[in-house]
């Protein structure tokens, strides 16, 4: 069971992600923007980061870029939640250090499949 950080400015999305992951037995911490997420990630170690891209204060890509420089998060899988079908957000995310992405809209099963895949 993994310790997961879920970041999204939309509380309904956060609720859905948290509910789904907790249902699968994971431990989930929520954050509403990149800055809050960064603070939380520095105060405890997460096994997986799932983050929205468009957020106020600090967007998901900047957050990933920042967190990836932390020595504790060098290899931690970080997934972006993105509605962007255009490849440039994905490319930007990858360049910032994102592991991969989950394309919105997704259902709980798709989320779990991807998470299980990443956590192995």
């Amino acid at each position, binding site marked *: 069971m993994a310790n997961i950080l879920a970041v999204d400015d939309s509380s309904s999305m956060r609720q859905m992600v948290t509910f789904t992951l907790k249902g699968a037995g994971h431990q989930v911490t929520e954050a509403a923007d990149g800055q809050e997420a960064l603070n939380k990630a520095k105060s405890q170690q997460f096994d997986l980061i799932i983050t929205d891209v468009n957020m106020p204060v600090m967007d998901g890509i900047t957050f990933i870029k920042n967190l990836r420089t932390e020595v504790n998060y060098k*290899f931690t899988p*970080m997934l972006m939640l993105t509605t962007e079908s255009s490849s440039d957000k994905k490319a930007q995310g990858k360049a910032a*250090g994102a*592991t*991969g992405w989950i394309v919105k*809209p997704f259902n709980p099963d798709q989320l779990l499949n991807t998470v299980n895949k990443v956590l192995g």
Partner: protein
Amino acid sequence: MPIDLEQFHETFFEESFEGLDIMESGLLELEQGEVDLENINTIFRSAHSIKGGSGTFGFTAVADFTHDMETLLDEMRNGERQVTESIVETLLGCVDVLRNMLTAIKDGVEIDTDSVSQLTSALKAHLGQQIETTATNKGADTKESPTKGWVVSFKPEVDIMKTGNDTVRLLRELNSLAEEVQVSVNNDALPSLSEIVPENCYQSWEINLIGGDVSEDDIRDVFAWVDDECELNIVALADEAEYLGPERRDEERRESEPERRTAERRSKSSKPTESSSIRVNISKVDELINMVGELVITQSMLSQFGEDDDFTEMHVERLKDGLAQLESHTRELQESVMRIRMMPISFAFQRFPRLVHDLSSQFDKKIELVMTGETTELDKTVLEKIGDPLVHLVRNSLDHGIESPEKRIEVGKSETGVIELSAFHQGGNIVIQIKDDGAGLNKSKILEKARQNGLVTNDERLSDEQIYDLIFRPGFSTADVVSDVSGRGVGMDVVRRNIRELGGAVEVSSTPGEGSVFTIRLPLTLAILDGQLVGIGNETYILPVISIIESLQVKPENINAVAGNAEVYRLRDEYIPVVRLYQIFGIEPISTELESGLLVVVEAEGKKIAIYVDELLGQQQVVIKSLETNFKKIEGLSGATILGDGTVALIIDIAGLIELYQKDIAGVATPVKGGGIAA
């Protein structure tokens, strides 16, 4: 275990409506010519969130509609598109359509597809697109070539692990695809031990996937996250076609279909009007926990007395202290709980900039809206219900109050009219004022209209206040032309009724040429009331302390009988109608002689009556229990409460009682049955 997405809908709607409000105020700012990138970003984010959420929760119509908005906004924030008035206008229209769509979905009613397609075309027109038939169909272009298997050669870059990707995971995933998998690893690039950087990846692999009906896309999907970080070659194995057909895919599709339908089905049972959840600031909750802590301490202190066998005088003193503490803690706890329901009035005010914007262009008037006291807090229920009356009053000020720019210049005023919306505390009430600097109410026109409608007889003489008050009477409207905005006939009387239902009152004052002020008074909360207990016969009734002007012993010489069975009492220079409560509620009083009881003079909406009661019993805060939910609505009563001794007492609705009395005098009403229900 399928997860029921419906449980997140409430939150989704709540945040979406908030998002729409944010978009709206952002767009209004844009329209005033302030093109600020952060603002456009915020608008974009809101649209983006609504799109993401609606897609996830199965509201595809909303997601599709938002898509074009998002595209347009994206171009705006990237500087690819100029912000023009017409774009802003279209986007504002989109906000309305979205709001309607979401409301319709929430309430389980049909979406108004006309407005949706209208705005969709407007958006497409801006985007320079034709109405597209279908979205690009991903995956349809690659044809499924029947193959026995695949040879995948995978050569990752050395840095692949640094994005959290794990080659083992990729291999494991490939393994799960096919029936048989053969892997060979190439370690040629592996440096000598001393040169190895453990964070790098030096290997490459060749994988044979055999059987299992794997398509090239399936394999590409596995490598989707890393396709820019590796060399990937996928070659079909020599084909001795053993084509299994696309059954598997069909099956998947069949599975997901009912799920989507469940999500699309809206809960019909949910009540459309109010949202049932509330967002509470964490500090309010902490306060509550604090208070409960205090209560627990007091309780444990008091419980010690039960353990002591010998009870001395000293104990009595401490018991008294404890009880006093208990009382103050209970009161504080009560106040804290009340505060949880309190929300800033800005929630009701925020729609007005848009409303005023739209209406002033519609009427060709120039209006400046000034809002003050937006942080004044109000009970959530009151807040939700005060919105419509406020809209009506603001519309009214805009339509009837403020003059046209030409007219204003003519009378020497500034071209731009001002509507002031303010909220503040006064006594135990919240006061909301809508003030305009227009022409003021036209007394003679009101009077003329009232006479036409038979609301006033020709020889009746009325004070200014009484004349102004006529506009709140049912069936009254002075608008010569019934406009779209006001003057629909349902007007001020509905406003007054709605406000009265909230336990509040509305008044108007006006100065010719200078404008009018509508003042709404609302109770802080609907749940608790400062009550004066009065006894009539064996019954106890409660009068709201706030409506009481004075209580007095009757002097027989001041009683005058007037036409029919009506009585008035002369109090100083005023004649006040006497209402014998026992008659209205049909109960047996201790005495029917006015001299042996008391008169309580009460006022509501500028009208006074003297209520005859047998005795005054005391004042206390009472918790209001609704009669409608437990029994039925009774005219003249606003609710019931349970007294300290466990009996039920009915709470008098003064304004309602006055109306009841007036009907009674006019011989219209029959006495209320069941008014004297005992506990």
